[in-house]
């Protein structure tokens, strides 16, 4: 099994519902976003970009690219970052020592660091006492690695897990389920009948920073379709 995702940028409307669903289900504290949507070429999201006298506004959703050769995994001195048997790159929050080599190594800038105790960061927002959002329980893999916990310890790195708490049960990630544009397709790249495999096989897809040889398992369909 090799889990992967195709993001159809033609269908993406830049609404950022995926970023919010990701944040909510994965209990990310203020300031932390595992998944972001940009307007390439623009400082501020959804601002037009002038190009050759023509205007355009396209979007790019970026979260962990789930590389087959993950630079973050290579540099991790303690083996906290690893790839599971489904091809998902995960972080063991109990093993991570907070050296942040992975933040420097990731060419996609998707790794986030818990500088502050997330519980404190959430408390500063002023939520009602005792309120906690997100998937409420810990998730461990078969070897006992802690790959999800609602409040990550201060001083650890974190990132998208393809919603390990859901996908380990055969469900889809929160970003896929929440996309009103239905721009995200998730599935097994090893299964030639899966929608992701079909798209990768039949459509012109591209991957971010392909030249680095990281071999991401997140594929993109071009935002621009041929115009009549």
């Amino acid at each position: 099994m090799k889990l992967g995702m195709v993001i159809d940028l033609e269908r993406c409307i830049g609404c950022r519902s995926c970023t919010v669903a990701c944040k909510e289900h994965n209990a990310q504290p203020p300031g932390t976003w595992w998944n972001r949507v940009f307007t390439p070429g623009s400082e501020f999201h959804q601002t037009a970009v002038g190009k050759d006298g023509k205007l355009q506004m396209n979007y790019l959703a970026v979260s962990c690219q789930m590389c087959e050769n993950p630079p973050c995994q290579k540099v991790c001195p303690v083996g906290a970052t690893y790839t599971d048997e489904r091809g998902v790159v995960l972080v063991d929050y109990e093993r991570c020592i907070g050296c942040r080599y992975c933040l420097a190594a990731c060419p996609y800038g998707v790794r986030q660091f818990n500088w502050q105790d997330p519980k404190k960061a959430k408390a500063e927002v002023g939520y009602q006492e005792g309120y906690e959002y997100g998937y409420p329980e810990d998730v461990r893999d078969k070897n006992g690695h802690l790959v999800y916990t609602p409040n990550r310890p201060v001083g650890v790195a974190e990132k998208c897990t393809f919603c390990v708490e859901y996908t380990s049960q055969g469900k889809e990630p929160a970003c896929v389920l929440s996309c009103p544009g239905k721009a995200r397709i998730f599935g097994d790249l090893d299964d030639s009948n899966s929608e992701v495999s079909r798209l990768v096989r039949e459509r012109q897809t591209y991957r971010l920073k392909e030249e680095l040889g990281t071999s991401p398992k997140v594929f993109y369909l071009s935002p621009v379709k041929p115009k009549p």
Partner: protein
Amino acid sequence: MEKKRFRLNRRQFLKMSAATGVLLGTAGTAQFVKKAAAAGQTKGAPVEFKTVRTTCSPNCTGACGMLAKVENGQIKAITQASDYPEAEYNPRGCLKGISMINLIYGPDRLKKPMIRSGAPGKGEFREASWNEALDYTANKLKEIAAKYGPESIGVIFQVGGTGYVQKGAVISLATLAGWSLHHPYDQNGDLPIFFPMTFGVQSEEAEPLEWLNSRYIAVFGSNIMATRLPDAHFLVEAQNKGAKLVVFDPNFSATAAKADEYVYVKPGSDAAVGLGLARVIIEEKLYDSVFLTTYTDMPLLIRSDNHKRLKAEEVQGLSKPADVPAYREAYVAYNGQFLAVHPEKFELPGDVVLEGELEVVLKNGTKIKAKPSFQLLKETLSNYTPDKVETISGIPKDTLVRLAREMATTKPLHVIYGASNYQWYHGDLKGRALALIPVLTGNIGKSGAGISTYAGQYKIRMKLADWWVPEGKPQKWFPWLYVLHGPTKTMKAKYPAHGLKALITGWGNPFDQHNMANKLREMTEKGDLEFVVTMDFQMTTSGRYSNVVLPAASWYEKTELVATPVHPYLQLQQPAIKPLFEAHSELWIARELAKRLNPEFENHYFPGIDENTAAEKVIEMLLKTGGPTVAGITLDQLKKGPVRFKSAAPGNRQIPFYEQINLKKPFPPVSLPAKIEQTGQFVKSGRIEFYKDEDLFLEAGESLPVHKPPFEESEYALNPATREKYKFAYITRNSIYRVHSTHSNNVWMDELQDGKPRVWLNPQDATAKGIKEDDYVEVYNDRGKVHGHAILDPGVGQNVVVFEQGWWSRYLNGESFNSLTYPFIKPTNEVYFVPGVWSPNAAWNECLCDVRKAGDKQ
């Protein structure tokens, strides 16, 4: 493209589950696993979220079906329910809806009733018990009613369709007590008044699923990709099915970015564009003359002497058929002989003339000249040559001609006309001009065709009188613009003798959103508005200006019946959690107030039973008496999921004017709760009308749609100095991060925009003003000002300032983006008065301003 969902089959699932060690006990059920006690082991019982299916219902009126995931009595996450029977509608919901937890559990949540102890807006309150707050409120309201009359108490309830039960409770209390109601449709500027003028109806919209059947979609100033997030994908899918999407806009919006063709137009020039397109369609004979003859006023004769429509009863040898109701009129057409046109039958022969001039002998023997409306339209349109339209709008003439040919020949054609475009002084003229395109080409009443607005969803979908209008008591309606503007000479609505002295508000934040020229704040500060009571689940700016703030239940904490035409479903709100702290539903609040105002009033509110049970009783009653659109729908069905409204169209689809065109029922369709006697008079011919012969139209030179430049009759008439002083159009548009002012305080939404209000400028304009990216700038005119950080956007047209509305005052240093606007009232909006149907409409964008770096001298 049918998307194949990622699903593991049972064997794969078991294999993987065993491998990952997340499955406990008997295999086959997907359940969450409690915390593992030690590495490599899993212990404890599996945990399952309780999920509650409910409906999101802020004033976007999208009414998206949502699932609250509840554990330990807390909503841990909100996801789209994705349970609409048509897969195309799933998932419905956006970034705001799914982050509603930040408001439910956020720091601005109200806990107890509050009574203001300091000056308005200063935030000084003391907590009170419900009994004290309700007694105090009821006594003050009785006092004010005794002193100034009950009609001096105004009620703001916002969009009725998003809450028939809870909003209805407050509406019915206003009805019982004789208070004035402010209809949100015109208050919010969302009433597309060309609709009652042309079609006699409040508005009609194609459901987004119908977009997939269009072959040509022409969008005029609507930003679907930002304001209709759950429906936006239908535009992309329509394109993929072969439709051409053309967007006309002064700004390169997110919607323009997805278009097959983006057409820049100067602000306020859309009527000229519509008329220019119509001229080409008529000149090149691309119109559907059978459609025009059958369903429109185009063959009806207009007298050349007084410019009124010729009545059958005026013509020698003709008479008005006996069965014509009082609110309609029989007019005259000609096919070699003069014909009395029955307003309730579409049966004119195909050979009636549309062009030329005729001599008519009246009953008294006088001879007059008359022309068909079509002839007059043709004459009017002769002014809108492609050259002239290019000058007015900036559209190259060849492009205009090409687009007109494309629109006339690619069917079905659907026009989407955005509120940002009609919230102008001459918004009615633009709508009437743009409506010509689908009507001339016969694109009405058909799948994938028509003209739709999608601003607010005010149309009431079922009969509600048993709940909203106790004992059929007359209701008093007071259009909001008169509160701000004062009475006018031409007004048809009744202005209360003492004006507005008290305000009851819920489901809205009028002190940020409706205080044109800061009027509402000033009225409170000066004491003209003597008492304000707000029901809300959060302490908003309006709460801070209120004398009493009553903590209401959020829409995850109560029972409600919700409808919206964008996806025409009837849905429930069901409580996912108990109301936090001391919050109660509005039905409960209304019942408690009713009891204190007059013990007899309480009987209307199912006294003595739990508030959610009472809400269910109301729903059962409404389903029983709601009429044909809800026939057979039961509460039990609704508890299971959304139920589609019934309609005459195949598949119960919502296709505007389906019955008029296909079943030959006269215009207009009913605009509930108004009676047909009230709205039938708007189009007395029973047809689609482009020629309006009421005196105010004739006096304005607007008997047929024409282009009138912006600001001439508004800003420049108000103050001639404005012409030289203020050159920038001030556009307050919607952001993807707020629903008007709801979610202004949502922590995640603020993070996504760095917590900064923004001012969008064209880079050339900014350079001329010495403004750089992210500079703090002031937007101002003689009435007010607002500050924000500059964004230099090459997609913003020149001489335009765009401010994204909805920011609470506290994010604007106490300023209000609405302090610049003015409550202009156009007399054609006053020809009739039917609340929320034909009523003066707020023209937010009819506003001029200038911009400078903050701190620069005047």
